[in-house]
């Protein structure tokens, strides 16, 4: 029940992040094209394009961070894990979940230390610097939830013991 609600919530976040990150990429493309064309046709550069591209790039990377994990598309090596049965695999999966959650909680714990110091208005963009790292910390929090979900599912596999995680 909780798992289902969590899954639905994370699924919604994934869609929102995906749309936003794609939008940022297309926006980067559009403003840089505008800059090139403006220089080519009017001999006039658009000075805010470069600083804004940097900002959009950072946001895109950090929004993509969660989507990668949500889709299970981060690279991992399963050469060793493949040798084991579903039970050991589920146990390892729980262990991996705990490790990743531990790391991300450690990082999230740094947010209140780091964010207040990431000040300073970004020139020609006009926002404070910490807005760059906010999406990173949000993604980290969502990835924690994703692994919590993963652990719940793997625990059930252990309980039912028969089916591998992938089929649930």
């Amino acid at each position, binding site marked *: 029940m909780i798992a289902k609600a969590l899954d639905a919530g994370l699924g919604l976040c994934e869609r929102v992040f995906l749309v936003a990150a794609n939008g940022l990429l297309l926006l980067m493309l559009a403003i840089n094209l505008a800059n090139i064309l403006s220089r080519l046709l009017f001999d006039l550069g658009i000075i805010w394009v470069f600083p804004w591209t940097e900002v959009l790039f950072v946001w895109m990377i950090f929004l993509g961070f969660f989507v990668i994990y949500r889709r299970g598309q981060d690279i991992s090596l399963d050469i060793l894990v493949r040798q084991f049965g579903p039970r050991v695999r589920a146990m390892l999966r729980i262990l991996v979940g705990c490790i990743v959650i531990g790391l991300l909680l450690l990082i999230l714990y740094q947010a209140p230390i780091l964010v207040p*110091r990431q000040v300073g208005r970004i020139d*020609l963009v006009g926002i404070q610097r910490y807005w760059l790292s906010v999406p990173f910390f949000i993604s980290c929090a969502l990835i924690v939830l994703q692994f919590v979900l993963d652990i719940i599912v793997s625990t059930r596999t252990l309980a039912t013991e028969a089916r591998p995680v992938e089929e649930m």
Partner: protein
Amino acid sequence: ETWRMAHKMPADSVEGRVFQAFADRIAEKTDGAITVQVYPNEQLGKDDAILEQLQMGTVHIYPEGSSYLQKWVPEMQFVSAPFLFDDREHWARFMASDLVKDWHERIETEAGITVIGDPTAMVRGPYRVMVVKKPVASLEDIQGLKLRLHPDELAAAAWRHLGAEVRTLAWTEVYESLGRGIVEAVNSPIALVEPMRFYEVAPHVVRHDEYPQGLAFMANAAAWNALDEETRAQVLEAYDEVAAESAAETLNAANESIERMKKEGVTFLQLDTAPVVERMQQLYEQMRENGELPEGFLETVAETRQIDG
């Protein structure tokens, strides 16, 4: 106690040598009570990352331009206002004014960062130039000139007001963009012209003294204030000595560098700055009317100018 000093110059550059000399002198003066480990070449990170580490205390000293302090007090961007100060002495008097002192106090309260010694004493440059593909000698030559700037609103407003076509690019792309003509000119302290090699693709170096440059030795205030008075005095003594030596050394290094570049066919010119300064006055007046300048800024600039000298 070991302190860490981070900077972004190569260790064997003029500034790199000055920083190392300061580090050595501190150890000497304090009789080893404080030793300073120097980390050149952005080894510990770039500007923002270092300033944040300075606050957190993994870095103790970071020598850079005062304007980097605008991160906490935006008014600090005006300490490098282009074509406003008559000369280095005028700028030094301005930097010693109550206005700037007040900004520095706010920075210490807000960010926990203090500046060791007089930032105008430690010379950078020693002057600013434009490296450009065609000769530039007057205000007219600046009209329509494609000038690369770092993203910086004040500098962009200033150079646009002077008639340049301002373009922003990452510094790693400047060399090739000069070569291919995406930009025609770039501003730089004279000391960096040779190491950055821009003159290879833009063979004219124009001295314009855009603004005087110094190096503010930004320090973690808690660490600095924790030192006893005697030690602080010793560090400041070391600072003053090295600063005094740095001026001549920087000038020498610049002159030697210019001689080397001349042999490579680089021409050196002087910009006629009087009309430039005059044109800039309009912009500053206009900015004051729009309320874009700090309270009392132009007045302080004027007051520090009028001091008998």
